[in-house]
């Protein structure tokens, strides 16, 4: 029978261990040299006939046993074998895990690249002047909590994320929602985890006290040191925001540390002309004291001058490679490193995550607009084309199911031959919507970037696994 390897990526550790990432299952296997040679034999175009191949092997029994293992583990399969049928959707209605409350659509900054107010805005109307209500009222915030708690099925824990606009422009709604959620969750014997994203301009003592007391997971949008922060993250009059936020961030981090709160992350939007990522990483962790830093290339339609471009992505991948070196060094000391992109990737690689959808949007996660309308995620609230119900009447299950069916990885034929598909699954819906006008298509403009980054992740995984395999215990999921 003609046999061939399935879709996979081979990589090597520093000490010569051969690994393979099996893209059909997301399993990572390590091989000795003879087994790696067998895999290479069957990886050639058109595969090999097993009988003919076995006849060539000096130790036939041993070779047959190895081949048998590879077949059973799904690394080698008959050529042309149809893929095993895959569930199109999990049992619906899928229980909610996270609700993102867009408590305001107003912002006190005017970041030039913002998808919310800039040229790539989704919402109808006039952006920062507001489409719906500028702020969510306390009743809607409480209705959102009720909606989440009645839509979460048997989950013992749910997450509430506050977002904006600038989230803290509506601190009263955050307070009302948190206090109400606390009370309701207790009655229903659920745990609630809170998180919030903010630009840090409004982190007053009262706010910091409240957030740290409720153990908020906090993400600060910040682009780096002064020159990077002030390039795009400006107030309406064009003045940079660094001088306002730096002392407030220091105060937050200090209070949070004192109260042993959750780790606080910086989220950096990467644009053309930004400082190298390692320098920004060092500034944010060492100078300001952030626990983690995550980098996100700016979401941009075609032709935006701040977009990264092909060269920009190549440069970024090299910079991520530098940060990966630091990550490996920390991992070998059994320490956590704060490069969040790589940490998240290594977690998914270690667990063997195999996604049918790129993210939880529309599945376990929904966004709520200031008026209580439900969207796929926080980026889609107030986008009429992706409305999936509202918090009082609940989810429109037919719209939700239709979207998820259309957005399933098996519908993205472009992804068929990509080894990164278990992790990427076509990428961000909002990116695709901005770029192609269709949220359910694959983001072909960053395939090379994703493959390059996953490849970096695999090589890093191999290096750490060879030298300190126990490091990955922290990523295990029961």
């Amino acid at each position, binding site marked *: 029978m003609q046999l061939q390897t399935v879709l996979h990526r081979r990589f090597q550790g520093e000490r010569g261990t051969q690994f393979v990432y099996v893209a059909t*299952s997301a*399993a*990572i296997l390590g091989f000795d040299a003879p087994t790696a040679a067998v895999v290479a034999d069957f990886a050639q175009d058109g595969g090999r006939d097993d009988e003919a191949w076995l006849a060539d092997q000096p130790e036939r029994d041993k070779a047959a046993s190895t081949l048998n293992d590879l077949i059973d583990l799904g690394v080698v399969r008959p050529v042309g074998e149809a893929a095993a*049928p895959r569930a199109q959707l999990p049992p619906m209605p899928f229980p909610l895990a996270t609700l993102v409350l867009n408590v305001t659509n107003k912002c006190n900054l005017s970041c030039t690249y913002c998808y919310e107010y800039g040229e790539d805005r989704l919402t109808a109307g006039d952006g920062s002047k507001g489409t719906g209500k500028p702020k969510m009222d306390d009743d809607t915030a409480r209705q959102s909590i009720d909606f989440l708690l009645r839509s979460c099925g048997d989950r013992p824990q749910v997450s509430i994320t506050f977002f904006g606009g600038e989230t803290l422009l509506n601190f009263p709604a955050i307070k009302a929602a948190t206090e109400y959620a606390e009370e309701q969750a207790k009655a229903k014997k659920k745990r609630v985890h809170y998180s919030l994203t903010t630009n840090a301009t409004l982190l007053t003592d009262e706010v910091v006290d409240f957030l740290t007391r409720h153990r908020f997971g906090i993400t600060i949008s910040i682009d780096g040191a002064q020159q990077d922060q002030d390039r795009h993250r400006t107030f309406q009059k064009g003045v940079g925001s660094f001088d306002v936020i730096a002392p407030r961030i220091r105060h937050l981090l200090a209070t949070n540390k004192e109260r042993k709160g959750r780790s606080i992350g910086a989220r950096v939007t990467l644009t053309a002309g930004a400082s190298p990522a390692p320098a920004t990483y060092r500034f944010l962790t060492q100078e300001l004291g952030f626990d983690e830093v995550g980098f996100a290339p700016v979401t941009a339609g075609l032709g935006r001058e701040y977009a990264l471009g092909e060269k920009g992505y190549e440069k970024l991948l090299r910079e991520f490679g530098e940060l990966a070196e630091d990550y490996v060094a920390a991992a070998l000391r059994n320490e956590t490193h704060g490069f969040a992109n790589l940490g998240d990737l290594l977690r998914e690689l*270690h667990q*063997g995550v195999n996604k049918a959808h790129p993210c939880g949007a529309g599945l376990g996660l929904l966004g709520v607009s200031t008026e209580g309308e439900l969207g796929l995620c926080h980026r889609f609230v107030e986008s009429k084309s992706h409305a999936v119900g509202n918090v009082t009447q609940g989810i429109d299950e037919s719209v939700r199911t239709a979207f998820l069916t259309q957005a399933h990885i098996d519908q993205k034929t472009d992804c068929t031959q990509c080894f990164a598909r278990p992790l990427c699954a076509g990428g961000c819906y909002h990116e695709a919507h901005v770029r192609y006008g269709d949220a359910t298509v694959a983001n072909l403009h960053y395939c090379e970037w994703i493959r390059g980054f996953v490849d970096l992740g695999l090589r890093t995984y191999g290096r750490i696994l060879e030298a300190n395999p126990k490091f990955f215990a922290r990523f295990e999921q029961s």
Partner: protein
Amino acid sequence: MTSDPNVPARPAPRIVACNQKARQLAALVLAQRGQARALTQDPPPTQYPYGCTTIFAPGWEVDSGNGTHGLCQPIERDLYDCYHTCYWPAQVPDGVTNAPKWTMSCGAPMQDWKSIDLVFP
């Protein structure tokens, strides 16, 4: 093959399941080994299956789409097996009293199952 990277096997395993998914997969493969055994193997198995399970026939099943196209052999093969070796009067003509000659036209079901005709009660 080993499913636990923390337990070094001697001699060194040819394949190590590194991540959690690989370990789950390896555990599954190892658990399933030995469950399917050839009747002609040497030494022979100590327990023999009984009845229609002695032949390879998946029985009355539907595939994931509630159809029969995805089954591993023609549905007609199932028909023949149930008629010949099983008592399954609701689905196939019974070979004892009403339709003893139903499969007479079919000597080798794997080749000419198409010649088995319909029976109208």
